[in-house]
């Protein structure tokens, strides 16, 4: 059997093992349930908006012409933060847990590359968190279409897939951050502390970016912040947090200049991909160089 197919088989084995193990964890159950509840609450309020015939807002699908997309976007706004917490919760001790339970030794006793282990885990967490997200989105979409009797046009379906793609990239970026934390730390407790620290740090970057940006253009906080007018250093602080790029969904329906990133859809997608690759590369490097025991 060729080396490629050997690697593929090992990769699938690791991913399958990790997925089956992940979906049995309490953390997946707890955060998964919270995510589903928040998505349902968002859908409920979004649906309530339809009944009130609210006027269109910037960045959101028009509730009159795209009712299902509108409800879905509200459901996203309620649930996407918990989805990233779920992604981080699954991945932050991916390697430290294997180390402390001494299963890493069992894995690395086998002819398997460390990159295969890392990528297998990455895909498993994406399948767990992303699968839950895609599943609940499709259920809501089909359910809402049937309830409202407004069936999506091809452009509506396009919106659905582009927005799901953005959220999946967003989830991936937090899985990558979790894997980096796991490769930087030695124990699960250290990993947990690291994950909390990084989470807070990303928030600080965002708030600091907004505060510095507003200060630079002599504006106090307003409902519509002109992000595109911010100086470069303030924008960079904002861009560090992948959360500033997931708003690219809104650029599908409105003016991107008012988005946190101040960038269009394609630029946000590129920066989301960068925010996946940037933590993954050092995670791989550190894992490759680290002692197994």
């Amino acid at each position, binding site marked *: 059997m060729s080396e490629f197919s050997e690697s593929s088989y090992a990769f699938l084995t690791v991913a399958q093992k990790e997925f089956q193990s992940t979906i049995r964890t309490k953390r997946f159950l707890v955060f998964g349930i919270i995510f589903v509840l928040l998505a349902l609450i968002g859908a409920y309020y979004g649906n309530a908006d339809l009944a009130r015939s609210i006027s269109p807002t910037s960045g959101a699908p028009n509730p009159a012409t795209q009712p299902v997309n509108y409800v879905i976007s509200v459901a996203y706004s309620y649930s996407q933060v918990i989805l990233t917490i779920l992604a981080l919760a699954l991945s932050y001790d991916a390697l430290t847990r294997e180390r402390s339970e001494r299963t890493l030794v069992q894995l690395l006793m086998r002819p398997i590359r460390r990159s295969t282990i890392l990528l297998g885990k990455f895909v498993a967490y994406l399948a767990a968190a992303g699968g839950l997200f895609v599943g609940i989105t499709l259920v809501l979409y089909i359910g809402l279409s049937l309830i409202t009797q407004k069936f999506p046009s091809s452009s509506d379906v396009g919106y659905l897939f582009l927005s799901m793609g953005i959220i999946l990239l967003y989830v991936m970026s937090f899985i990558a951050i979790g894997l980096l934390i796991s490769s930087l730390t030695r124990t699960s407790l250290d990993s947990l502390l690291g994950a909390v620290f990084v989470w807070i740090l990303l928030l600080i970057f965002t708030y600091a970016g907004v505060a510095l940006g507003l200060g630079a253009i002599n504006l106090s906080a307003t409902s519509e912040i002109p992000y595109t007018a911010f100086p470069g250093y303030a924008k960079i602080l904002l861009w560090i947090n992948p959360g500033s790029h997931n708003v690219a969904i809104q650029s599908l329906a409105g003016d991107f200049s008012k988005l946190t990133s101040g960038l269009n859809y394609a630029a946000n997608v590129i920066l989301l991909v960068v925010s996946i690759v940037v933590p993954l590369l050092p995670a791989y490097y550190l894992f490759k160089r680290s*002692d197994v025991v």
Partner: protein
Amino acid sequence: MNAVEVLEVTKRYKKGAVAVDGASFTVEQGAAFGLLGPIGAGKTSIINMLLSFIKPTAGTIKIFDREVATQFHEVQNRIGYLPERPGFYGNFSAEKNLRIFASLSGVREERDERIAKLFTIAGLEGKEKDLVRAYSLGDRKRLGIAAAMLNEPELLILDEPSTGLDPQGRRDIMALIHELNVHDVTLFLATHNVRDIAEICDVLATIQSGRVAAPTTTKGFIATVRGTTVQLEADVANMNERVLQAIKSVKGVKSIECERLKISLDYRPGINEDVNYIITRAGGRLRSMRESPSLEEAYVRMMGEERVE
């Protein structure tokens, strides 16, 4: 051919602690080699370097003539490893664990048959579907051996295989390990338990504070310890002065009690055979032989002497 070659290997950790200090030894293919030393002597560090889990600070390690530092992947699938506390996925059944590790070891076509056979060999029949978290330590060790044997290794590395086991569990595990050696699997057994070495190994090297002594046979090891004696008892029908003189003339014989022919010897290789030859020629029969100290006593005595020095 050597299964393992360790040449001038040193492992110094970041904080300056020297775990292994210029160790050199070889293990022949098919041998049952024991690395004997107290807890913290550096045994596990040596194992971790053999398995490429950590890198030596200096020196070279070869397994089946391949350098571990650069060619480990070429011999990886010829090695099995039983850690002191084998790790498994507790939420999966024992069988599922072995399936995962078998798949990662490249075992495909005969995977399920091999796993079933290993459950039988390891004495875990009927426990295949049990979750590993419900396993006792003894059963985990058995499962660890099964996991180590998945790729049918030529070299099996065992780290403290009997630690934490009850007497029956220990006996079963040691019998299983011995059986593997009979089937030409080279054993590398690191332990602080002298009994494990005495029961399994034909060659041993001691390790103390990271320094490994030259390998020797177990008998040779006893002989290196000062004050080792052998007590022989024999029945000799035609005991006479000539026979006594012949025995006394053997180099190393210390004393003879004539009444019931008790002979005390200073140990050296071959001395038992020399005395036994004289007794047999005189129409006698060796009734008992007791070496003093035993391997365990010799080991404890040697460690004590090293500490004093």
